């Protein structure tokens, strides 16, 4: 069984050596630019520290279920979401803590969701995979691979229907490109001129399966052509490059056409917190270290004179403080009362809705005497 020409495993080589290569020293950086770059860095750092904290909390059994981290995708997340307006809508998959943070949701609420508490973004009903915040227009967090795509596509249809200026961004993993949902969604978007940016976060792996084993066309962005959708691939280990890609994509979407953006990233750890990722070769793991986007970007900013070691250390302390505070808040937040179990089955109340706990009888026994009314008794 000959696989199609295998793409190499590291995002930097996969994007022709762009990632990780330092940009030449910039001659002048004005204050606005300095602020922008610093903001990216702080954003990336917050995600990094948050995810590390989540990982710890998971091993301490404070977080349950599956827990997928954005470690290695910080630059992509920061770069992409920086291009969205507050009015735009975001749909993601289950690997979305960083997106929630970058969208501006209070880290306390994100952490509280991981802890399954009432102050969580989804009130403790969603957990790690299902972050949702209607006020920040982050409409999930979906655990079914590809599930978010048709839904996001429909959101874009509503925006078009209502002639609104907003757009939809819908992210997915590289493995998701194989799903029928991908095909059906992009076909609708291309056919109906929907204002949506589909983003493939290509971290090279599904769970342990690499792109060469999941996609007959491993240059994933090329799939856009099958729907007459403009597409491009960018390096997602650098927030500026990710942002540049997103800028074009968002512009096209705001102009009323869909766009497909492939963002090359790395997954620094296992698929989820519990995965030791033994299927990775030592070389792959070594290459990963060189491509750490947070490190790389720090070095780049230091090179450019935007940051010094003190600032880096200071920002790190800040990020850790935010994350510590979030964890403390989450730990203090109450768990949902079991009396609320039936509160969210329906939005419109309906007669005869079951509100039965498992131990209850369908027809609770009548007081002893009453049974005698029956014929057979």
């Amino acid at each position, binding site marked *: 069984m000959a696989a199609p020409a295998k793409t190499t495993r590291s995002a930097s080589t996969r994007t022709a050596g762009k990632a990780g290569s330092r940009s030449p020293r910039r001659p002048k950086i004005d204050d606005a630019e300095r602020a922008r770059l610093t903001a990216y860095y702080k954003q990336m750092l917050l995600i990094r520290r948050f995810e590390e904290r989540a990982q710890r909390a998971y091993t301490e059994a404070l977080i349950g279920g599956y827990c997928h981290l954005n470690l290695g995708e910080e630059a992509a997340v920061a770069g992409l979401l920086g291009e969205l307006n507050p009015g735009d*809508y975001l*749909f993601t998959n289950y690997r979305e803590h960083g997106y929630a943070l970058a969208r501006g949701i209070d880290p306390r609420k994100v952490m509280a969701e991981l802890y399954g508490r009432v102050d*969580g*973004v*989804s*009130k*403790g*009903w*969603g957990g790690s995979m*299902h972050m*949702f*915040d*209607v006020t920040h227009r982050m*409409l*999930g*967090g*979906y655990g*079914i691979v590809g*599930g978010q*795509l*048709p*839904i*996001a*596509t*429909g*959101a*874009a*249809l*509503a*925006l078009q*229907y*209502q002639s609104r200026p907003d757009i939809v961004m819908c992210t997915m993993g590289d493995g998701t490109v194989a799903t*029928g*949902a991908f*095909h*059906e*969604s992009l*076909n*609708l978007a291309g*056919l109906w001129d929907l204002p949506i940016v589909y983003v493939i976060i290509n971290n090279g792996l599904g769970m342990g399966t690499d792109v060469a084993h999941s996609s007959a066309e491993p240059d994933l962005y090329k799939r856009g052509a099958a729907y007459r959708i403009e597409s491009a691939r960018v390096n997602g280990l650098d927030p500026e490059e990710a942002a540049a890609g997103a800028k074009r994509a968002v512009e096209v979407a705001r102009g009323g056409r869909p766009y497909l953006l492939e963002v090359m990233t790395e997954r620094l750890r296992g698929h989820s917190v519990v995965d030791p990722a033994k299927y990775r070769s030592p070389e792959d793991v070594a290459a990963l270290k060189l491509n750490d986007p947070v490190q790389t970007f720090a070095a780049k900013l230091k090179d450019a004179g935007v940051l010094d070691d003190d600032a880096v250390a200071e920002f790190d302390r800040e990020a850790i403080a935010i994350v510590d505070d979030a964890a403390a808040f989450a730990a203090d937040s109450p768990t949902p009362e079991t009396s609320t179990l039936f*509160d*969210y*089955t*329906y*939005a*419109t109340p*309906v*007669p*005869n*809705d*079951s509100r039965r706990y498992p131990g209850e009888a*369908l*027809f609770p026994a009548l007081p002893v005497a009453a*049974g005698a*009314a*029956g*014929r*057979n*008794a």
Partner: protein
Amino acid sequence: MTEMTYRQALHDTLRSELQRDENVMLMGEEIGIFDGSYKITAGLLKEFGERRVRDTPIEELGFTGAAIGAAMLGLRPVVEIMTINFSLLALDQIVNHAAKIHGMFGGQMSVPMVIRTPGGGGQQLGASHSQNIELYYAFVPGLKVVAPSTPAEAKALLMASIRDDDPVLFLENLALYNTKGEVPDGLEPAVIGKAKVTREGKDLTLIGYSRMALVAQQVADRLAESEGLDIEVIDLRSLRPLDRDTVVESVKKTNAAVVLEDDWLTYGIGAEIAATISDGAFDYLDAPVRRVAMAEVPMPYAKPLETAALPSVDDVINAVHETLDAVGRRR
């Protein structure tokens, strides 16, 4: 009062809902230029345009999912899935998404959409086109499932479904489209979640929904005339939520029940109805609850085989007789 077909009642309701609310829109395969595979949407594309009445490619998963997202942002999409057999392709979006979004995200958003789709059988369409799989929806908390049997019910339940904030599976039936009935003028939306006693009686209760609610009526009428039997008939109307009380109260009175369904017997809708009666009316039942359902086979094309596989009026009459015999032995 106007007499009209079930098809007409659906058509008129879609039209008036499109007129009433700008957010109502229709999506589905062949609903526009083709006027709908079963002509429910005939003329609506012409009247309301492509924005409101949207022909989709053949992708049940994609467009049903798109309706979910559109509903989350405030539209009220009414999706037509050509027959319920094809809805299997959309099941992930309906069950894993539409039914879950309100709960999974702590009640932040709702999904006000309707999926209209006909069940059937008896049209010689073969194994993959003759299934009655409403069970797949009725089983799922977060969905509402209604199954009207008459033009008036079709209208009242469709209005209610479109105006409801939850995803509603609206079950139609190929064999009902041409049936006629009186539709009151100024009909109000129905209350979803309630069954209806459509004929009062004391000898036995017949329970059905969709096409089988009509068959129940026919049988009751026929046995009243031929044998003077006084049979009570219940049209379930809503499969989720299920109105257990109406069913149980009836059987407490009649002490015997036969459940009619067009799906397969084992694990079919009727299993829950029979279990419910056997539990809630335990002390009142004079005979086992009998179920009349489809034979458990992939539906054959050849007419005699198909006929043999489908429950008939005679099968129901036989079940009523056998049940009353059993009651007789006990009384």
